[in-house]
């Protein structure tokens, strides 16, 4: 119990004193996970919407695959991304192993199916006649898709939250492809793992609290946006 209290005290010390190392780690976490989420939004929303709006043979199988992908284990993603970008791997020439870029790629792979699955479901949940209504008002196909995505913006914000939440808290892939290099690829989760391993529980707790706070703040902002649009 004392350990936790000490940890919390330490955490506030670190936060209030603007410890440069902790600040750097926090900023890097935000940057990597934010960029990865952004990529996953582009890919996830466009493919999710396309799958929701077209009918093709094997559509149910594709939807099952996407839904399975929502639970993709980060270590498996880390493993495959590592193999791909390993010095002798097919993408080894990029020389990005143990860099933040590799972490962004791995995290984007983790977040994309989550965003895709939620976008797909939210577009499918729109009233079936809405598409026809929009077309009958003279929309082109592109205009129709854009209106539908805008109409599904509230559940799509949930996709942003789920995607970001999934990658900011992820550790397996980040440590595998990022390497937890101090001042370069060390993020909140990997640092927490390391400090816990070293027995520095107070710092580990402090990092954990910062991680929670960060996740909370981002979700608070997104929820504010989402609920503001919902008068009822």
């Amino acid at each position: 119990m004392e350990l936790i209290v000490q940890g919390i005290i330490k955490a506030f010390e670190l936060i209030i004193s603007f410890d440069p190392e902790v600040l750097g780690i926090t900023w890097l976490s935000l940057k990597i996970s934010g960029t990865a989420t952004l990529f996953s939004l582009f890919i996830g929303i466009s493919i999710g919407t396309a799958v929701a709006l077209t009918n093709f043979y094997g559509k149910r199988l594709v939807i099952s695959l996407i839904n399975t992908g929502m639970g993709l284990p980060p270590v498996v993603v880390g493993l495959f991304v590592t193999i791909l970008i390993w010095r002798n791997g097919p993408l080894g020439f990029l020389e990005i192993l143990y860099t933040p870029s590799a972490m962004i790629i791995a995290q984007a792979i983790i977040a994309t199916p989550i965003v895709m699955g939620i976008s797909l479901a939210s577009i499918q949940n729109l009233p079936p006649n809405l598409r026809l209504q929009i077309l009958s008002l003279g929309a082109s196909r592109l205009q129709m898709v854009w209106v539908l995505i805008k109409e599904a913006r509230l559940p799509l914000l949930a996709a942003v939250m789920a995607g970001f939440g999934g990658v900011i808290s992820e550790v397996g892939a980040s440590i595998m492809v990022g390497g937890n290099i101090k001042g370069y690829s060390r993020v909140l989760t990997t640092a927490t793992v390391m400090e816990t391993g070293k027995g520095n529980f107070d710092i580990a707790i402090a990092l954990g609290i910062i991680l929670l706070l960060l996740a909370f703040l981002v979700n608070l902002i997104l929820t504010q946006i989402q609920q503001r649009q919902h008068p009822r």
Partner: protein
Amino acid sequence: MNSKNLIEIENIILQRGGATVLDIPEFQVPRGRILALIGPNGAGKSTLLLMMAGLLKPQQGKIYFQGQPVKSRADLANLRRNAAVVFQEPLLLNNSVYENVALGLKFRRLKNDEIRKSVQSALDYFGISQLAKRSAKTLSGGEAKRVSLARAFAIKPQIILLDEAFNSLDPPSRETIIDDLKQILEETKITAVLALHDREETLRLAQDVSVMNSGRIVQSGKTAEIFNQPDSEFVANFVGTESILEGTVNSCAAGHMVISINGKVIEAVGDCSIGQKVYCCLRPENVTVSNYTQGKISARNIFEAKVSKIVRQGFFYKLTLDCGFPLVAYITIPSYEDLGIAKGGTVIASFKATAVHVIRRGK
């Protein structure tokens, strides 16, 4: 192709899962008129509407819009831009009322001030300009319906297609929306096709009626004609048995109306402005047949009538009478025998003013 018709359909067949959804050898929508498609659920009314809106392609057959066959993607886009559909659900976007009504105009990339003008006049038409800034999700059912109608009229379509548009509304807002819609259609002269299944709505709104059953059009004609002369048992059952008389209100005072029908005058109860065109609906069981020519009777409407048709229906006779206007009466077998009714014979037909159900209609 007849230029009087805005849309013509030829030999359309649509099948879904082996079942025939539509099978229409020919069908026309005359320009500038209000046509009702009536029929039971699943008759194909909505499917036909979607097809006329260019939102559904037939597997076989042709659609002509303004005399031109709809073939290419460009034809289809042209039809879509000139037709506006109003669905049963309002299908409003989660946005302000203004943005919703402006939607179709924005798709057309019109200038902002042009959009503002068109939206304003569409909102005014439906009496909802005060709602412009409201969020569409906070509207009542009646208001939402008005917004979806305004959105359809804002694009100034050649034809407006309404799919069971009044179904989910409470009776008072349904009444006022129907009145407003009728007035707007008459003013703008926009061609309209309405899928309906309520008799009274059909009588109030439609100039022409086509009755549909299991994907086919079973009878088409002027509204009164369909109601008075159904040519099959199906249509007869669907439109009901009332005599529908077209008339004009001559005078109206203290809830007592005098309505002229085909040169004859009948009395009815209700409130209407003078000169208003109406349908007078009369149930056959409310018509009394007698041979009295003397004495007093409480019924305000008494006519000498010729028996033009006698049909036995189970335990009663259905008489079609000609009083200068057609009238249907049911009488029991004993009454029939006592009165000695024969085809071509003359009887006295009477009905009470309170038995006449008056429905206002368009011009």
